[in-house]
C-alpha cells in the first residue's frame, strides 16, 4: 500500500477501499423479496402463475439486477463476487431440490401406513389386497442379510486396505488396486448371478438362501470398503508411524494401535457409506433370497428371505392401492434405517474423535 503512487481523494483512508461505495447490507435480501413479488404479480397478471417459472424468473431477475447494481456502485471485482455467490447458492439449492423432494414424497406417502402395526407384522397369511399385514419379515431380512454382508466385507475390505497402504509394493499393489477398481464397477445383478451360479454348483439348483444374498452384497461392498479405507489410512501421516517405530514398536502394533485408531472416525464413515450403498440393492436379492417370502425368517441358511427393497418391488408390481401404500411405508422404513446407521456412525465418530 505504501508504494501506491496515485493520490487518493481522501488521503487518510486506504485508496483501494475509498474509491468505490458499497451496497447496503440488507440490499440483496430486499432485492430478492421485491423480485419475487414483482415476478409473482406479473405472472398472475398474465394468469400464468406456476412454481417453476416463478422461481426461475425470480432467480434470473435477481441475479441480473444485483450484478448490474453492484457493478455500477461497487466496482468490477465486487460484481464478479456477487455473481459467483449467486451462482453457487443457486447450484446448492438446485442440488438440494431433488433430495428434499424425494424425502418429502417418501414421508408424505409413507406415513399413511407407517405405524407400529406395519413394523411388527409380516405378510404371512395376508392376501396382497387385504388391508392388513406389514413389513416385519422384510425388516428382519434386510437386517440379517446386510448384517452378514457387513460382517464378511468389513474385515476383508479393511485388511485389504491395510495391506495396500502398509505392505504392498510395485506390481502386486497395482494389480490389486486395478481389480478392486474393476470390482467397484460390477453391476449388482451380475454379482447376484455369480452367487446363484456358485450356489447351483455347490448345493444344486433351487437352494439359494439369505446367506447367498449376503454374499452377493459382500461382493458389491468389499471394493467400496477397500477404496474408502485405503484413502483414510493414507491420511494418517508418516510422522505418526515413525514416532511409533522410534519407540521400538513393531509394525503390526503400530498399525493396530496407532494407524487404525487415528483413522477410526473416517473408517467408520466409509463403512457406513458402503452399508448404505448395498442396503437398497434389489436385483441380487431377488435372484438369491427370492421375492415371494411372506413369513418371518431369521435363518440365513434356510429358505427364502424377504428384504425391504424386494418388498417394495414386489408390492409395486401387485399394483393395488394398498400395495402402493405398503411400498411407500417400506421405503420410509428403509430410509429411516439408513439414517439410524448414520446417526450411529456419528456417535462412533464422536467417541473416537482425537481431540475431545
Amino acid at each position: 500500500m505504501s508504494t501506491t503512487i496515485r493520490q487518493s481523494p481522501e488521503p487518510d483512508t486506504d485508496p483501494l477501499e475509498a474509491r468505490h461505495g458499497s451496497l447496503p447490507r440488507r440490499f440483496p435480501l430486499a432485492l430478492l423479496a421485491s423480485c419475487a413479488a414483482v415476478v409473482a404479480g406479473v405472472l398472475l397478471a398474465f394468469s400464468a402463475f406456476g412454481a417453476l417459472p416463478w422461481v426461475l424468473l425470480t432467480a434470473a431477475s435477481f441475479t441480473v439486477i444485483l450484478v448490474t447494481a453492484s457493478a455500477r456502485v461497487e466496482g468490477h471485482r465486487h460484481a464478479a463476487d456477487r455473481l459467483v455467490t449467486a451462482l453457487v447458492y443457486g447450484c446448492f439449492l438446485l442440488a438440494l431440490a431433488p433430495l428434499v423432494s424425494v424425502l418429502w414424497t417418501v414421508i408424505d406417502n409413507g406415513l399413511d401406513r407407517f405405524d407400529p402395526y406395519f413394523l411388527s407384522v409380516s405378510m404371512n397369511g395376508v392376501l396382497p389386497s387385504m388391508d392388513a399385514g406389514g413389513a416385519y419379515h422384510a425388516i428382519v431380512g434386510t437386517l440379517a442379510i446386510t448384517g452378514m454382508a457387513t460382517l464378511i466385507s468389513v474385515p476383508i475390505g479393511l485388511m485389504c486396505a491395510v495391506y495396500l497402504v502398509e505392505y504392498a509394493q510395485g506390481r502386486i499393489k497395482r494389480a490389486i488396486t486395478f481389480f478392486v477398481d474393476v470390482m467397484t464397477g460390477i453391476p449388482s445383478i451380475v454379482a447376484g448371478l455369480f452367487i446363484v451360479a456358485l450356489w447351483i454348483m455347490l448345493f444344486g439348483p433351487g437352494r439359494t438362501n439369505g446367506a447367498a444374498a449376503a454374499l452377493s452384497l459382500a461382493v458389491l461392498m468389499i471394493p467400496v470398503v477397500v477404496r474408502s479405507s485405503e484413502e483414510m489410512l493414507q491420511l494418517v501421516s508418516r510422522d505418526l508411524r515413525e514416532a511409533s517405530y522410534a519407540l521400538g514398536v513393531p509394525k503390526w502394533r503400530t498399525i493396530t494401535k496407532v494407524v487404525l485408531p487415528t483413522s477410526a472416525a473416517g473408517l467408520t464413515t466409509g463403512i457406513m457409506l458402503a452399508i448404505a450403498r448395498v442396503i437398497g440393492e434389489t436385483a441380487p436379492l431377488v435372484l438369491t433370497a427370492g421375492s415371494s417370502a411372506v413369513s418371518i425368517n431369521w435363518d440365513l441358511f434356510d429358505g427364502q428371505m424377504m428384504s425391504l427393497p424386494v418388498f417394495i418391488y414386489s408390492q409395486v408390481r401387485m399394483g393395488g392401492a394398498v400395495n402402493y401404500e405398503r411400498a411407500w411405508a417400506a421405503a420410509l422404513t428403509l430410509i429411516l434405517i439408513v439414517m439410524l446407521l448414520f446417526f450411529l456412525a456419528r456417535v462412533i465418530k464422536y467417541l473416537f474423535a482425537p481431540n475431545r
Partner: protein
Amino acid sequence: MAKRIDVSGLHVYYGDFLAVEDVSMTIEPRSVTAFIGSSGCGKSTFLRTLNRMHEVTPGAYAQGKVLIDDMDIYGPDIDPVTVRGQVGMVFQKANPFPTMSIYDNVIAGARLNSRRMSRSAADDLVEESLRGANLWEEVKDRLGKPGASLSGGQQQRLCIARATAVKPSVLLMDEPCSALDPISTLAIEDLIHKLKEDYTIVIVTHNMQQAARVSDRTAFFNLAGPGKPGKLIEMGETSQMFTRPEKKETENYITGRFG
C-alpha cells in the same frame, strides 16, 4: 546407560542411489554430537541409519558397520525393533499421537507394546519423564488433555519425554528446534544440556549457533559434488571446529562463504 557409537565404512542407499558414502566416526557417550551441513547432504539420512529408521522408506538400505557398545545393529540376528528401543528419536516436527492424552503419550512406548505396568509405576514413569523433559510443572494439572492441545515447544518436549520414557541409551534428534521460536528453542537446548548426563545425544541442526551452544563435538557433512553422495568432511571438538577447522570446506561453510 549411555553408550558409545562406532560407525565404520557406512554407505547408505536409496535403491540404486548412493546417498551417503563411507562414513566412519565415533560418537562418545554422555556427550552431545552435532551434525551440520547444507540441506540434502545426507546428515539426516545418516542419523536415521543409527536406529535403522531409514529402512522405513521403501528401497532404502545401508552397508557397513554400526556398533552401539558391542552390538552391531546391522548384524544378521538383530531385529530393527529392538534397536529402536535402544536408540530413541525426536523428529523435526513434534508428533504426539493425536488420539492420546498427554499422560498416554508419555507412556506410549510401553502401552503400544502392551507391556503390563501397575498404575503407580505408570504414574511414576510419567512424572519422571515429564520432569526430565522440563515439562512437568506446565502440564501436571492437565495430564488427561490431548497431547495436541499443547504449544509447539511443549509438544516437542512431550515427544522428548515420550522418547526417554522407554529408557533408551542413545537419543537422536533430527532438527528438533527448526520449527520453534527462540524461547522454546532455549528450553530444548537447556534440556539437551541436562539430558547429556544420562544419554548419548546426536543432534542434526541447520543452526550453527545452536551447534556451537549445545554440542561437545561437531561433524560437518557435505556433498562430494552436484549429484554425488554426501560425505563426512570433518569431525572434531566443537570449539576447534568453529575456530580452527582443518579443512577449507568446513571453514567456508562455517564462515558463511557458501551453502
